[in-house]
């Protein structure tokens, strides 16, 4: 068996296969993290460069996806269990005023958190790149929408995005989406009547989910469990690019958590990683791309402290780990006295960006969503409760079928008192301090949640709904979008990476992650992560 065969053999049982996790000789590029950012960078560079990707988590067997779907439906499995998150590897602590449920918010493994994501892919608005200038709060990005625009288009092609050009509030685009948008749902038609009365515009929403066969993957077949698992692979996940990178010659090593980055004053020299056999290895390369998300990226830099960088690698600015942000959820739900046909699919098909660009210093940008999965899923209801037979069926019929709900995401401003650090009192299975999450949310975001609730409530009242729940400022939670912890800035004293996402301190180290976002906007971050990753790949190639 060749080394390549042994590495690819890690899809099978390790009890019967000897997986080669040794370092790759003469590597040009070492990518840390095989989520969407890392996988896209690896795929872009693999044809012409010797690329190695290291990921802390496993290579999941695609054949297990239906079994993972069963976990998603069964009440005995918590959400982190679906993709084997938790345990010593994923230990963390919370110290902020709000608890951040980190292990609900991430997946470690080849594909990363796209394995469990919802798959919504919007571009940030032009004003999101100039928040300080345009809105008087936050920070300006050192790049603007025009810089990222061609990469957005490329990212849409790479991920496969189903969308339409019917959104008058979206930023300008240069070509149609790669696939037609999913048609509106029946409940969208109910919302449309109410919204028309209120002067609220509805439009389609871009999905990284195949509305028709695309890139060798099937169209959506409607399993309805998009979040946390798509058995059909119709929803994009980063295994697509990890596998393609391997086909192009990259080496992807799973279960290889990077412990620290060895370095001298201005270059990273090696990634030191552990393997399941208890060994440590040293992967040298000419260039390093850290793509571990908004929590593990700053953690790795902090763990790589040295005499040269006593406060953490690439942390001359003191901003590594600072400005941790997420999007805040705002929602209202209730019931109608008529069927609403919910829970046929696990994604939404209509949204409203009408109020997004009204943002200023007092009110954050926010977007609104019209759910197709309001209320309980009957099969999940059936697995709890103390009834069965005719009594259970009666409960299901009473409980299902008339729900409506709207959701929304609200921008959180970057704050220095919202951060990811290291907890010196707790270590993981390798003896490294675990991440300490200190999540703080400011008044602007909380006020904006109230504003979003006000609109959502008006729509549901116009529909004639009996309102049953409100996710307002007191009940809000994170959307599981980790951002901001290695922010981008032209000023080396104000940020970790420059406009090219290359660290100010180290000439051969890039960060491809939502951790570079100076502000978050209110759009789901993955398309921007993907666009930045493609831009990073171009810069790495240019400088190698």
């Amino acid at each position: 068996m060749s080394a390549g065969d042994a590495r690819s053999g890690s899809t099978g049982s390790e009890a019967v296969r000897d997986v080669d996790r040794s370092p790759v000789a003469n590597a040009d590029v070492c990518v840390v993290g095989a989520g969407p950012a890392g996988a896209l960078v690896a795929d872009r560079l693999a044809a012409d460069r010797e690329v190695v990707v290291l990921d802390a988590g496993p290579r999941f067997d695609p054949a297990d996806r239906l079994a993972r779907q069963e976990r998603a439906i069964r009440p005995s499995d918590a959400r982190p269990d679906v993709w084997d998150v938790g345990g010593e590897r994923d230990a963390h602590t919370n110290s902020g005023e709000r608890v951040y449920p980190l292990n609900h918010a991430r997946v470690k493994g080849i594909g990363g958190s796209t394995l469990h994501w919802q798959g919504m892919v919007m571009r940030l608005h032009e004003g999101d790149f100039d928040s300080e200038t345009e809105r008087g709060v936050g920070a300006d990005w050192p790049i603007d929408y025009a810089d990222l625009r061609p990469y957005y288009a490329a990212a849409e092609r790479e991920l496969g995005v189903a969308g339409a050009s019917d959104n008058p509030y979206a930023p300008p685009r240069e070509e149609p989406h790669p696939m037609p948008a999913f048609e509106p749902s029946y409940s969208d038609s109910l919302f449309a009547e109410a919204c028309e009365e209120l002067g609220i515009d509805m439009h389609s929403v871009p999905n990284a989910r195949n509305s028709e066969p695309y890139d060798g993957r099937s169209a959506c077949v409607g399993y309805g469990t998009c979040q946390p698992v798509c058995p059909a692979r119709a929803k994009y996940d980063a295994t697509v690019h990890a596998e393609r990178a391997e086909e192009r010659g990259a080496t992807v090593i799973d279960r290889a958590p990077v412990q620290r980055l060895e370095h001298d004053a201005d270059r990273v020299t090696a990634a030191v990683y552990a393997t399941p056999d208890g060994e440590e290895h040293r992967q040298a390369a000419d260039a390093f791309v850290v793509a571990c998300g908004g929590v593990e990226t700053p953690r790795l830099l902090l763990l790589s402290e040295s005499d040269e960088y006593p406060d953490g690698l690439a942390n001359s600015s003191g901003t590594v780990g600072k400005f941790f942000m997420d999007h805040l959820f705002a929602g209202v739900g209730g019931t109608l006295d008529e069927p609403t046909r919910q829970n046929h699919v696990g994604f939404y098909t209509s949204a409203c960006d009408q109020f997004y660009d009204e943002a200023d210093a007092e009110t954050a940008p926010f977007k609104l969503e019209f759910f197709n999965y309001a209320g309980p899923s009957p099969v999940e209801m059936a697995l709890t409760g103390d009834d069965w037979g005719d009594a259970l069926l009666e409960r299901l019929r009473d409980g299902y079928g008339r729900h409506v709900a709207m959701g929304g995401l609200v921008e959180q401003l970057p704050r220095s008192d919202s951060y990811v650090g290291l907890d010196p009192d707790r270590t993981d299975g390798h003896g490294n301090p675990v991440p300490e999450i200190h999540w703080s949310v400011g008044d602007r975001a909380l006020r904006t949640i109230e504003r979003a609730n006000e609109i959502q409530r008006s729509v549901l009242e116009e529909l004639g709904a009996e309102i049953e729940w409100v996710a307002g400022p007191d009940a809000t939670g994170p959307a599981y979008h980790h951002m901001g912890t290695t922010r981008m800035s032209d000023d080396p004293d104000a940020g970790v990476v420059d406009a090219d996402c290359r660290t100010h301190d180290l000439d051969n180290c890039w960060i491809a992650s939502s951790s570079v976002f100076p502000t978050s906007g209110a759009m789901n971050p993955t398309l921007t992560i993907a666009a930045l990753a493609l831009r990073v790949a171009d810069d790495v190639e240019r400088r190698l």
Partner: protein
Amino acid sequence: MELTRRDAAAALAAVGATGGVALAARRTSDGPESGGDAADGEEGGDGDEDGDGLPDEAAVRASMTAVATVLYPSEVDGVEAFVGRFLDGRLDGSAHAEGVRTAVGELDATARSWHGAPVADLTESDRDRLLREVGADTAEEDPDGTLAERVRYYVVNELLLALYASPTGGELVGLENPQGHAGGTESYRRGPR
């Protein structure tokens, strides 16, 4: 409302079991006296144990079918064939299949102890009473938990998941494409019928 072969296939697909191949392999190895026709419900399971003290496959099938007649609403027909086809794929030699077999064995042992006969030989009302006496009605499912929690996981919720992830089970509730069923992207657009 009739449960069909399509429903059983859909229920199996929802949990990642495929049926046919595993069925062929198992029946070949079981031999002619394995009770391969157990899905017709003629075998009561009393004393039908393999050498490990656990019920053989015929007894598992008989007991699961008997429990399903209690768990499923009276509106559905074809329960026996549906459960049989579902178990064709589900009893595949996996750890989960072994868990089902073990839980059924314990439930049958309890039935014999408390009611003098295995589950399949009890009246429907006694089967209902047994499940509640065991505590499977109020237990939260747990594959590694108490008897009540394991019966809830491997027997009660196993069968309820099979039914309500199937198209016919979904239609009973007014949802023809229930979660777990790959029912396409048409139905979410349709209004009520």
